[in-house]
């Protein structure tokens, strides 16, 4: 693209992120959308600072999420703690490798990639890197799309813990790893939400 593209910022226009209505800066009363009354901002307020904070918290909690047991299976014969990765191995040994792959991707690969991708996005938005904007925008949309799939393990654990409560035979107790993992998922979802995609496109 040659020259400066006409943007909302250069024309003094605002777009509502809730209903996508475009309006003039001055015509929006008290910075509220004329159609749906959502708060309007030229860019999401403190987008980079908020996203960074949430992301750092998520990255810190990613460690206990993977090291602490997510559930504890107590049977008459033994007592076995499972972390996320050992849960994947259990699935693998029981011969259901497609499900093992699914859990591996959803609980280990996706959160890690999400944290890395958001870090790349924050850096490039902060430095306003001019090249590969389309790719980064696509990366952001991919992160937005796959974000919720990390919840998969939490749901599996909650069902297991609810079902396996057979008195004196076996019971499954949820571990703190599950709590940390849930926090990682929510924090990365919120971080994705507070990131303003338009920052990737702002000219230097």
């Amino acid at each position: 693209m040659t020259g400066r593209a006409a943007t909302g910022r250069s024309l003094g226009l605002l777009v509502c992120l809730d209903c996508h209505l475009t309006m003039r800066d001055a015509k929006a009363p008290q910075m509220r959308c004329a159609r749906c009354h959502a708060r309007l901002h030229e860019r999401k307020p403190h987008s980079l600072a908020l996203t960074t904070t949430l992301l750092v918290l998520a990255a810190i909690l990613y460690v206990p999420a993977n090291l602490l047991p997510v559930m504890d299976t107590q049977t008459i014969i033994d007592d076995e703690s499972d972390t996320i990765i050992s849960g994947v191995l259990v699935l693998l040994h029981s011969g259901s490798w497609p499900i093992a792959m699914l859990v591996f991707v959803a609980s280990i690969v996706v959160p890690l990639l999400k944290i890395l991708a958001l870090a790349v996005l924050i850096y490039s938005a902060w430095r306003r890197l001019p090249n590969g904007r389309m790719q980064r925008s696509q990366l952001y949309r991919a992160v937005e799309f796959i974000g919720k799939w990390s919840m998969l393990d939490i749901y599996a654990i909650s069902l297991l813990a609810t079902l396996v409560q057979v008195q004196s035979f076996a019971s499954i107790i949820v571990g703190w790893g599950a709590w940390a993992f849930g926090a990682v998922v929510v924090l990365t979802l919120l971080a994705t939400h507070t990131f303003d995609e338009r920052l990737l496109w702002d000219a230097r």
Partner: protein
Amino acid sequence: MPLVMLCPACDLAHRCTAAPAFVRTRCVRCHKPLQVARDATIDTAIALAACASVLMFLANVYPLVAMHVNGASRQTTLIGAALGLYDQHYKMLAVLVFLTIFVAPLLHVVTLLYVLVPMWIGRSAYGQNFVIRLITRVRPWSFTEVFLLGSVVALVRLAKFAHVVPGIALWSCVLLMLCLSAMTSRTSSEQLWQWAGRGPP
């Protein structure tokens, strides 16, 4: 000055033209969808939402899975999964599960019906603008499809040492997932505002 619309993803200004009859328009720079097709009818959306509400009822009333082991048996419902976490004192996790598999999908369907049905008969619901905004805010937190795969994972892990029987609710969840995704793709916020008669020219 001609009417202008901004791309919500990259802030690029586009000259506003009439929406095409059958396809969505996309931003020329970042390819974000901008306008919805004019031909979309409200009937399909209402039908899907009505269907989703029936499936949601089934999914919450009947047991999700039953487990039989050594003569003992246990079963749980959809909400029971969240309550199980609550009983083990993981209240925050329980709330998270409850919100994402029960409250958000329910609110999504109920609010859609609340604004769509009056639109269908040519009126507008009380507080329509607020409710449409609520729909777009609630939608990203409805995780039915993820829950479904999560329960498949749980079933596979249990099948090793117990006899598990998928219940009616699990099959309803499968249909609900398909129904919700069809409904969501037909009711983007642009589309809702267009049906409300407040879309772009």
